[in-house]
């Protein structure tokens, strides 16, 4: 569904992302992992059209969308969410979701009906009339997801939807994402919460210092020496190995 080929981006002298290629097959959940500053979000901004890549290409459903502005990409069915969720504070929850629904439904009544439908599907039925600014972090993350779904997008790029949530909330949102996937959506998600990645993603890519260092199933990745070193520092894998043997 999504093919990213040799994506690179430099900011001044810093190579934020270099030569990243990845594939997201339709109907899958793919994880994008890596320590802080690895270039995950920069990858997202390029894929979703918020910044222009220096080199490389992004293909979505067979169409080259490299460098296309975000609103056009969204119309084609791919949408990103933001790590720091920012609901439209002056609007209610339902109106927030409706802003997404307006993309393909110009009539207010239709958009509001879809908003209420999507909201209820994500367990926000009792919050629809509340001002979005009154939501908790967990509520805002859900709202972000609901807004994205309401656009009718099929591929969702989720930027750390679980960051800042407590374990019970994570379990809830993992369930929601599974349910949305069953309904025919595809996910590419940046995630720090390993519990979530392990239980959701079929494949994951690991970025470190802008480069892809590993890919595979989450289970393979946690055993991969280069991944462990990226997170815990040089030599960590060997030390862990020693401890296990001892």
């Amino acid at each position, binding site marked *: 569904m999504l093919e990213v080929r040799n994506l690179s981006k430099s900011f001044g002298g810093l190579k934020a992302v270099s030569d990243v290629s990845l594939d997201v097959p339709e109907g899958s959940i793919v994880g994008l992992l890596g320590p802080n500053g690895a270039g995950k979000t920069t990858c997202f901004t390029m894929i979703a059209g*918020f910044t222009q890549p220096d080199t490389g290409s992004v293909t979505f459903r067979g169409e080259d969308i490299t460098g296309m502005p975000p609103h056009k990409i969204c119309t084609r069915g791919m949408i990103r969410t933001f790590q720091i969720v920012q609901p*439209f504070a*002056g609007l209610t929850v339902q109106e927030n979701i409706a802003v997404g629904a307006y993309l393909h439904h110009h009539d207010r009544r239709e958009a509001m009906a879809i908003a209420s439908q999507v909201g209820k599907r994500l367990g926000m039925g009792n919050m629809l009339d509340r001002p979005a600014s009154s939501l908790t972090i967990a509520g805002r993350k859900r709202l972000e997801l609901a807004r994205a779904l309401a656009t009718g997008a099929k591929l969702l790029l989720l930027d750390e939807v679980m960051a800042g949530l407590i374990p019970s909330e994570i379990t809830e949102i993992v369930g929601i994402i599974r349910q949305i996937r069953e309904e025919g959506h595809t996910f590419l998600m940046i995630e720090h919460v390993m519990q979530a990645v392990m239980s959701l993603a079929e494949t994951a890519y690991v970025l470190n210092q802008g480069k892809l260092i590993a890919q595979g199933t989450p289970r393979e990745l946690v055993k991969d020496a280069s991944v462990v070193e990226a997170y815990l520092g040089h030599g960590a894998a060997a030390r862990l190995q020693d401890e296990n043997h001892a």
Partner: protein
Amino acid sequence: MKFNSVGQIALVVAVCAYLLSVYFMASPVWMGFTINALIVAVIAQSWNITGGFGGMSSFGHAALYGTGAYASAILQVQYGVNPWLAFAIGIVAGAAMGGFIGALAFRYGLKGSYFALVTLAFAEVLRICASSFDITGGGSGLQLKLEPGIANLQFPDRTVVYTLLLVVVALVMLVTYMIKKSRFGAYLVAVRENEDAARALGIDTYKIKVQAMVISGAFGGLAGALYLQLWLFIDSTVVYGSAVSIEALIGPIIGGAGTVWGPLIGTLGLHLLGEGAKHLLPNAPGLNFVLYAIVLICAVRFLPRGLMGLAALIGTLKTRKDEDHA
């Protein structure tokens, strides 16, 4: 129209009652004063579209107002165009100027105070141009010939003028209400609240912002053309001066930016205050602007959502039944 609280309903009823009572007041001063305020309410609503709903605070709405007034005046005085047609072209000219300023400013991503400064610059440049060329009458301005009659869009009877202005203000508010309840209105608010999130949700934010400037420009041009038909005389300071820009923004901010009634309420309130000050201290002309400044500072500090926001806190109607379940 749906209001959230008893306070807002009371505020709106009070304004309507005042507007009606003007018909029965013995002194003609009130009607004259309110006529002026209603024209300002139109330019205030113009500002409200971009500044209130869209979060693009302009400091140069005189550019739109003056363009509407000058376009109409030039056509009538220099080319003998029919006043009704000139009036309509004045509105279109205002919209075109709004679109032009918006297209340029947003092409380069100007926001916040930079956008405010650029709009101020546009208004000032236009003011200087208007006072320099022959076609605009240079420093002496343009004077319409006094030819009362419906055909010439000139009405000597104050009561008729007042009624027509009430209709215009009501129409402008109706359009604003329809915008607020439309997809475009929702997109405009989304752009105000968070432009990046809006782009991610498929909104062409540049297009939305320029469209808002066009609508705002049409309202602004309308206000300017109305002023011309009422006073039959304009010059560069009167219609392009920064006083117009200030009046355009201060009403909505005091009354409640991003609401349908806010601009009218704020403008009337301020004008009553200014007028009162003039009568109390007749020897201090320009004092009303000092008062406006004080009120503006207080409003920004204590009433971030204006009088409509304050009134919303009184007797809230919508019970939050859902909170019991949560």
